[in-house]
């Protein structure tokens, strides 16, 4: 099954370490246009670091990252320009607290991309509508719930019209009942064909959204595959063990009385 889609992101032999601690160890990855890749793995396996490297937020020790054949390097002069093509959403929903919701969404299009204000606002409103928060347009971030803030952060990233969205455990800091409203937005984006790399601990979401699941451990890709196979019949023992940690076995038995 040859994939005809163009490769937008190419990671070659990426190595990242903090001091002596090697977090990513010679990782290769290709991402095609429209692909949704979900990265899972135990904590400390380097998933978040991988996303931060792709966005040039971490200095890398080896290999390279090419976005549309342009090298991503946090120290280079054109990094700000490259980052415009990458919409990143972090775990902590860090909106700018001194700006209203619509200002949060339109700030970067106006000051970075120099788009006309009216156009940026119109698009910002359309994006807020899309994440279901147009009525919060003039509120400040502190007036919103965690889930709402995270939806605004997604709209803010989308406003830059990025080629790839990088989502770093975006629901990890949310109350359980708010997780769904955020993930629904992402499912919607996937349906539309947005290219995304998603780090998450929500396994049922991963299964629903992914084109390809990557299981990372010790800075290596231990296993990768389509979600239908990965979640039901993982090839490696490690992946099986990892998936097992999400299940619990009942310690009490109950009889259901009619």
């Amino acid at each position, binding site marked *: 099954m040859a994939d005809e889609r163009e490769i937008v992101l190419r990671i070659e032999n990426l190595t990242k370490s903090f001091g002596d601690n090697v977090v990513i160890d010679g990782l290769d990855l290709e991402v095609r246009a429209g692909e949704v890749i979900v990265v899972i793995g135990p904590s400390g396996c380097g998933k978040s670091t991988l996303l931060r490297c792709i*966005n040039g*937020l971490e200095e890398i020790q080896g290999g390279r990252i090419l976005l549309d054949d342009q090298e991503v390097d946090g120290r280079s002069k054109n990094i*700000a*320009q490259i*980052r*415009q093509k*990458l*919409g*990143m959403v*972090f775990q*902590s929903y*860090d909106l*700018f*607290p*001194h700006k209203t919701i619509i200002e949060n969404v339109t*700030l*970067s299009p106006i*000051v*970075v*991309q120099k788009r006309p204000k009216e156009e940026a606002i119109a698009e910002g409103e359309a994006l807020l509508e899309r994440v279901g928060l147009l009525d919060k347009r003039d509120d*400040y*971030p*502190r007036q919103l719930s965690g889930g709402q803030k995270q939806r605004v*952060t997604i709209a*803010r*990233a989308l406003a*830059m019209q990025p080629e790839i969205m990088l989502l770093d455990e975006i629901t990890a800091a949310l109350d359980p009942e708010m997780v769904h409203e955020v993930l629904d937005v992402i499912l919607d984006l996937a349906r539309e064909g947005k290219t995304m790399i998603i780090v998450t601990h929500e396994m049922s979401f991963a299964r629903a959204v992914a084109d390809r699941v990557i299981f990372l451990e010790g800075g290596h890709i231990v296993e990768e595959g389509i979600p239908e196979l990965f979640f039901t019949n993982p090839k490696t023992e490690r992946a099986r063990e990892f998936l097992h940690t999400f299940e619990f076995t009942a310690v009490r038995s109950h009889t259901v009385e009619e």
Partner: protein
Amino acid sequence: MELLGLDVLFKGSNAMRLLQGLGVAVEISIISVVISLVLGMLFGIFMTWKNPVARVISRIYLEIVRIMPQLVLLFIVFFGATRALGLNVSAELSSIIVFSFWGVGEMGDLVRGSLESIPVHQYESAAALGMTKGQIYYHVVIPQAVRRLIPMSINLVTRMIKTTSLILMIGVVEVMKVGQQIIEANRMVSPNAVFGIYGTILLLYFLVCWPISMLARHLEKKWSN
């Protein structure tokens, strides 16, 4: 009136003289505050540098400012500089030097604190949106830092205004000194003036500082998040 010694206030040009004395105190405060704000900003940015030499210098400076009583600093500059260095520094200039020395240190520390209080995620999410370093500071970091800074720096300003009541000790004829002169001159006829005059001075300081405090409170409420 007699009982409180307030009648003295209306004798001759006493009220006017008190106000002029207040003018001197306020003038010295304003000049020192402006110097402190401007240089304090720069010093605050200097304090955020990771350079170890910069750290040691700012540390020592700040400790001196914190540990030394303002009165001692005033004496050192006014009497000490004249004796040791042979400089003839006027009392007013000495006051401005000491108040600025104090203000720059404290202001710098406030600026440092408010810059460092901006979470690293604010920088990162702005960077992830494609902003350059300059844009991040201009649109994201500085507006937030200033909101934290202004209420605290206004408190510093009122403290500086109140502390000008010390500069009579080096002979500046400000409101306290004028008050003393009026009380001395009327000691025989209205011994109670001591209460009336100092009470009036208290009220004058209050009238200068209170609006400033109200402004700080207002801004704090407006920007709280």
